[in-house]
């Protein structure tokens, strides 16, 4: 499908069966909806609220030729690259974060011509998801104009039909699948997010199929008590699975802090052994543990409790320093 084909994108949505009932399923069953060659948009941002449990499930299913899009790509992008699952990556930035420097895996795979990275500005990528969420083929913007990013993803310019000013047009981005992690959902897929919304609500509306993991499955009654907290309605969602610590080792706002020590060990191993270290990491943390619970057991309850305590400390009432 042409990325900006809004007619086809709408037909795909309309062709989906209307299922009013339960969306509740397992992580594995949710991930099975991803097919070889799909474009997956990943929710959250960098190491915040990344759907890591779903990422691991997709990797475990050994899906191939995936296009991955994310506003700021953290090391989940490296996992897809080294696992041989990524055909192309769309992002505005890719690394773990400033202290860990330029990604050696990004360098190896892009400089070697193995996985192309299509770069957009952060806002431009956000507007591409938003255009799709709105059901229109493009949005005009004043960003990216004059830069070398324009030809990379084939953004276009046009004179504004009302004022004559030059505008940048970014095409709608309709992913096949969105994978998201949220704080709470009910069994019908109504989702609530605390803290940063990131781009998740736009991504959910842009994609054809939406897979969600939630820290907690709550009752429909609880959702109805605070409907103002719902950011993705159930009819947008195809599958929802309960996954406490579903972003770990990334953070989930107010619930647990990212595990920077884990990032240090991961990055240190790459420093020493290059992409072999990522292969070893995939074996140990993605392919070996049979379930999400087994994965969490690799870290142990004490470590998880410590990350929870850190998050409470970081978001508690925010009294002045």
């Amino acid at each position, binding site marked *: 499908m042409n990325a900006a084909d809004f007619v086809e994108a709408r037909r795909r949505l309309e062709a989906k069966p209307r299922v009013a009932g339960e969306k509740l399923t397992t992580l594995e069953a949710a991930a099975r909806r991803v097919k070889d060659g799909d474009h997956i948009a990943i929710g959250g941002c960098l190491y*915040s609220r990344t759907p890591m449990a779903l990422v691991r499930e997709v990797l475990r299913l050994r899906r191939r030729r995936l296009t991955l899009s994310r506003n700021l790509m953290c090391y989940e992008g490296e996992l897809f690259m080294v696992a041989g699952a990524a055909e192309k990556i769309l992002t505005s930035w890719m690394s773990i974060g400033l202290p860990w420097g330029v990604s050696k895996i990004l360098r190896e795979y892009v400089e070697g011509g193995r996985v192309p990275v299509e770069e957009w500005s952060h806002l431009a990528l956000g507007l591409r998801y938003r255009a799709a969420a709105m059901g229109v083929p493009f949005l005009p913007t004043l960003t990216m104009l004059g830069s070398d990013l324009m030809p990379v993803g084939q953004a276009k310019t046009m004179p504004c039909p009302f004022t004559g000013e030059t505008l940048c047009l970014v095409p709608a981005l309709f992913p096949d699948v969105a994978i998201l992690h949220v704080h709470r959902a009910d069994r019908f897929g109504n989702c609530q997010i605390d*803290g940063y919304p*990131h781009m998740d609500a736009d991504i959910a509306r842009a994609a054809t199929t939406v897979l969600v993991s939630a820290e907690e499955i709550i009752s429909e009654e609880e959702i109805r008590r605070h409907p103002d907290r719902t950011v993705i309605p159930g009819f947008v969602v195809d599958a929802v699975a309960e996954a406490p610590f579903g972003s770990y080792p990334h953070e989930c706002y107010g619930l647990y802090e990212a595990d920077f020590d884990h990032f240090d060990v991961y990055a240190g191993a790459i420093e020493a052994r290059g992409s072999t270290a990522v292969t070893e990491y995939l074996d140990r943390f993605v392919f070996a543990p049979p379930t999400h619970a087994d994965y969490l057991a690799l870290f142990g309850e004490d470590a998880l409790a410590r990350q929870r305590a850190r998050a409470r400390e970081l978001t508690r009432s925010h009294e002045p320093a």
Partner: protein
Amino acid sequence: MSRRDATPAELLAVMGARLLKDGGRVFAGVGVPLLASVLAQRTRAPGLTLVIEGGIIGRQMKPGQLPISTNEMRTAYRGTMLLGITDTFLFAQRGFLDYGFIGGAQIDRHGNLNSTAIGPYDRPRVRLPGSGGANDIISLCREVIVLMPHERRRFVERVDFVTSPGYLDGGDSRLKAGLRFGRVSAVVTTLGILGFDESTKAMRLEAVHPGVTPEDVLKQTGFDLIVPERVETTEPPTVQELEILRTLDPERRFLG
């Protein structure tokens, strides 16, 4: 305490902070830009509002608790609003944001910055992390302040890839490309402060830091930099400025 006691990162933070006026709104990334913004807030610009691209407006700073990314929990400290990333940038597109800080691996004579690739885009010699919000900040904020170490390999005739457009080919080419708003107002480096000729938009030396000569700057610049007859000397960082920075970053995570 003299300038000799300031690290390069401290020097950039102090000089950057001094360019922010009270009452303004600054789009700040993490690291030195955030330190510069908070320093401004705690000295001459107490009414400065901080906006961070991860989706925070009005954050404050807890000493010793510096965020690593623009969208993690500690970045939200005492913010007045958390919002989506796209909408955060749209405040800049609408014209609400006065200042932005950015950097890059390379900058050229017309203030264009590269944080994408050294060498050709498709098969680069070095793939860098990419634009992130840098392109949006330089395209949409009213004024952009570039912070970077002054090294000859970074100050090049023409950047390999224009991630963030400064004045493009100079003259009115930025305007002609459709960038109706915004400008690069200053390039703050470890050697001095640079601006741009008003008509050609070629980079011009405005001031050197104490102990630095214009010749030192030329030696570390890979293009024909305009050096006017009168080059000012910046005031060295004060004891108070350095103390504030060191209280904010006691582990010297970003101050070096």
